[in-house]
């Protein structure tokens, strides 16, 4: 792996999202602020369902995760799709960049965007709650692993997409619905017992629950298994993306 080549791809990705801050940063900050205000402050102040935990503290990790996932996924999928569509990708395809360098470059770009989005939301959250993470190491682990997973998923979609509309399919029909029913706004205990097993099959439940534990020390799932699952998923997705790049699927004629 050549550091100069890798850092160039990463730098280009970072500059790409900084070039359009309203879309990539300000929009998720505003969305998250509204979520925090409406669900956390206005409605949340009337909800008292867990002892010693304010609703805003319970719901904040999920809100953070929603924007983090959208940021990481949007960064890699949109970037790759537009580079294919405008043929700018040929700049990289005709260079000595290895597939690993290209993929890591995209991932690093997505991680930076995810962290920038998180940092802004955190600043807003500090106005309403004491959002200091209970386990800072775990917090960074979850933010990082989720950014990696969704940037890799974004690369798969960025390769697959034939038109703009395709970029939103995964987000609209899978990611957002699974996130909303994966415990962002409610505890699993609030659901009837006969549907709780369904939530436990939802990978987003472990993502949100893990981040929540890292932030407020409250968890409803086996954390270790959840972490192993996320690491395995990231490794598997990386392998799939590498094979697709290596075969030149929808990249090379």
């Amino acid at each position, binding site marked *: 792996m*050549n550091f*100069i*080549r890798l*850092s*160039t*791809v990463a*730098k*280009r990705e970072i*500059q790409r999202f900084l*070039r359009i801050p309203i879309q990539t940063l300000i929009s998720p900050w505003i969305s998250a602020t509204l979520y925090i205000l409406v669900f956390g402050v206005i409605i949340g102040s009337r909800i008292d369902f867990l002892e010693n935990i304010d609703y805003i503290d319970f719901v904040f990790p999920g809100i953070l995760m929603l924007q983090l996932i959208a940021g990481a996924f949007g960064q890699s999928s949109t970037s790759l799709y537009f580079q294919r569509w*405008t*043929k*700018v990708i*040929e*700049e*990289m*395809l*005709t*260079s*000595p*960049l*290895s597939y690993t360098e290209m993929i890591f470059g995209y991932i690093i770009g997505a991680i930076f965007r995810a962290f920038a989005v998180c940092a802004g939301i955190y600043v807003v959250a500090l106005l309403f709650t004491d959002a200091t993470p209970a386990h800072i190491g775990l917090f960074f682990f979850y933010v990082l692993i989720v950014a990696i997973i969704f940037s890799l998923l974004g690369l798969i979609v960025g390769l697959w997409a034939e038109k703009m509309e395709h970029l939103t399919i995964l987000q609209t029909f899978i990611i957002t619905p699974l996130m909303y029913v994966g415990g962002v706004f409610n505890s699993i205990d609030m659901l009837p017992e006969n549907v709780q097993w369904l939530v436990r099959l939802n990978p987003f439940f472990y993502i949100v629950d893990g981040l929540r534990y890292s932030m407020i020390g409250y968890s409803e799932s086996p954390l270790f298994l959840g972490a192993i699952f996320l690491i395995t998923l990231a490794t598997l997705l990386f392998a799939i993306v590498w094979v697709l790049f290596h075969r*030149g699927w929808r990249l*090379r*004629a």
Partner: protein
Amino acid sequence: MNAIEIKGLTKKYGKTVAVDSLDLKVKQGEFFGLLGQNGAGKSTTINCITGIAKFSEGSISVMGFDVQKDYQKSRATVGLSPQEFNADIFAPLEKILDFVGGYFGMSTGKRKERVNKVLDLFELQDHRKKPFGKLSGGLKRRAILARALVHDPDVLILDEPTSGIDVEQRHALWEYLENLHQAGKTIILTSHYLEEVEKLCSRVVIIHDGKKIADLTKAEFTKNGDKLEDVYLRLTAKAVAV
């Protein structure tokens, strides 16, 4: 050593054969013309050399490096100026050049030096901060050429480099290309302007339906006072008749 050596290259798109068992050698330092009608297989051949297209039959080596097995080394020796303007329209020209230098593994200092050099060479210094999309057609063409040269490649491949630019700029471009050739670059040129191929190239290969139908030196295609255009039309008409 040959700068480029193609043996038995076949490239298919589904059932369509774009390039059919093509053999081609381009000597180091040669100014070489690759001619053919639209869809003859010129751009496909270039795409196979540069890594934009995959191929399943035959082999290609650039400066002695196999383009599939040794793809990183072979790509490091080639600069491509494609027919289409495939640059980020929102990025300033100097950034585009800097990034491409980075893709080729050049250090920051070296990139700065080379970017300045190619901007000087193509008289683009006044436009370095402008987004690519804001440049005129002629400036874009020069910018694409500058991009192809940032990493100082041994082989320069130019796919229709003068299409869409005015006569004055075309003549200026010929001068740039002649200077590059004098400096030792191997240049492969495809163009529909046969007078520029005749002026610049020392050898031409004509392909038709993906097959090579002629391989001529300048002395051969200009003997008896012939124009390249006449020779080309005669040969392609003959190929169509066959």
